[in-house]
């Protein structure tokens, strides 16, 4: 167990590699109750949401969710999040645990400055526990427990219903692993019972409880950014390669800067790196090309699926070239690697 944003979190249950491979082959269950939840409601909720997020929530329907970013006026990222659209008057923001406080402050600041006092912003972090059931067997595991066919919940859609007959839950077809799966929001007092129901139903399918360690290796194989690594107050979505979650067809905070970057380019580019020589790239290691430092690793690990060291990192735009050889400075040694497109897994 490790402390994380005020929570005691399991890094691993039986081992990062085993948990990781279980998610790829069958399924794993993560307790991600630390995630923050903020509800935005009221007649003009839609307008405030649209102003806050880079993506366009009007492009989806009620019962759908969407990945987006919250930016400052500078274009820097306050947090990345999933927006759940119950209807045009009610939205749920699911944000990173470590950012929940500052996201709430930012939302209230925008609310005040843009005159949205009639919209309700409520911190509901204490009202939800979250379990993430991830992996190809997730559907089969959930089928006997849910009051609807899990296969009928489309990608990035959610169902509000019952688990095990009487546990109220929001079940979305989402996740942070790149595998098929579901994220399940429920009242904290029901979390333990739901955990037990799911692990019991999953035992025949090879379900493994999975911790933060596997969550990180899984997201890295998919090239998903993690706040504090590939995202931050001084990093814009354009630099982090998240252009497709930014919609210039609507207005939002930070748009001016992002639009300029879209036109003129950014000062750095996020790339994927795969080791050629043995070694595990880690955050902070330098990336060299042609004898010069061109960037730094932001996240790195050993990929349990691919059996090779993988990393993401920012490099100068001129250096970013798919297939180009680079070297990673691993404890004073220059280990050969190549730049590659993301994701690493499932291409």
């Amino acid at each position, binding site marked *: 167990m490790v402390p994380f944003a005020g929570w005691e979190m399991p890094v691993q249950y039986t081992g*990062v*590699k*085993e948990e990781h491979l279980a998610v790829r082959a069958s399924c794993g269950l993560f307790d991600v109750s630390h995630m923050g939840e903020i509800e935005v409601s009221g007649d003009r909720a839609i307008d405030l949401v649209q102003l806050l997020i880079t993506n366009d929530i009007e492009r989806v329907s009620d019962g759908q969710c969407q990945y987006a970013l919250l930016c400052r006026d500078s274009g820097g990222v306050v947090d990345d999040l999933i927006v759940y659209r119950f209807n045009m008057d009610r939205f749920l923001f699911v944000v990173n645990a470590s950012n929940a406080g500052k996201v709430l402050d930012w939302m209230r600041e925008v609310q005040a400055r843009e005159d949205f006092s009639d919209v309700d912003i409520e911190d509901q972090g204490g009202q939800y526990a979250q379990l993430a059931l991830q992996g190809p067997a997730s559907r089969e595991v959930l089928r006997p427990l849910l009051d609807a066919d899990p296969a009928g919940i489309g990608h990035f859609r959610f169902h509000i219903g019952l688990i095990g007959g009487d546990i109220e839950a929001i079940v979305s077809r989402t996740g942070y692993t790149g595998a098929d799966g579901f994220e399940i929001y429920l009242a904290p007092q029901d979390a333990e019972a739901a955990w037990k129901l799911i692990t019991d139903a999953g035992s025949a399918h090879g379900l493994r409880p999975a911790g933060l*360690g596997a969550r990180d290796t899984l997201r890295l194989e998919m090239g998903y950014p993690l706040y504090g690594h590939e995202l931050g107050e001084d990093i814009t979505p354009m630099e982090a390669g998240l252009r497709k979650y930014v919609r210039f067809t609507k207005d939002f905070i930070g748009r001016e800067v992002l639009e300029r970057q879209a036109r003129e380019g950014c000062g750095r580019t996020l790339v994927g790196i795969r080791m050629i020589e043995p070694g*595990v790239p*880690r955050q902070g290691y330098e990336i060299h090309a042609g004898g010069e430092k061109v960037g730094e690793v932001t996240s790195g*690990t*050993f990929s349990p699926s691919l059996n090779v*060291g993988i990393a993401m990192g920012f490099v100068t735009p001129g250096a970013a070239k798919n297939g180009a050889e680079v070297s990673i400075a691993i404890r004073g040694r220059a280990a050969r690697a190549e730049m590659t497109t993301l994701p690493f897994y499932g291409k």
Partner: protein
Amino acid sequence: MEFPKDLKYTKEHEWVKVEGKIATIGITDYAQDSLGDVVYVELPQEGGSVTKHEPFGVVESVKAVSDLYSPVSGSVAEVNDAIIDSPEAINEDPYGDAWMVKVEISSQSELDDLLTADEYQKFIEEEK
């Protein structure tokens, strides 16, 4: 967790087996368990020298990277190349197949402050 009685131990979680002038060195069951899945090992060259309390190699798991500290000074007589290709052996058999190096000891007196199995076990219980 196992701590064979015929081995000596260090506070950096290495074990040493002394046979005459040769010390065989590896990491303990506790060390491999704390590290988790080991995916990479760096060891010195045969014929090179190692110094007591100084790093002689690196062991890296999915989660973390950790230096290996030599329990004795001397010259490297043999390196277990097999674990470079199969680092998972360190998790599976830390006292057997996954020995790391054999060192020809330069000073027998350096062995004096190594811990016995009981002392080491007590040390890690206090460290927890």
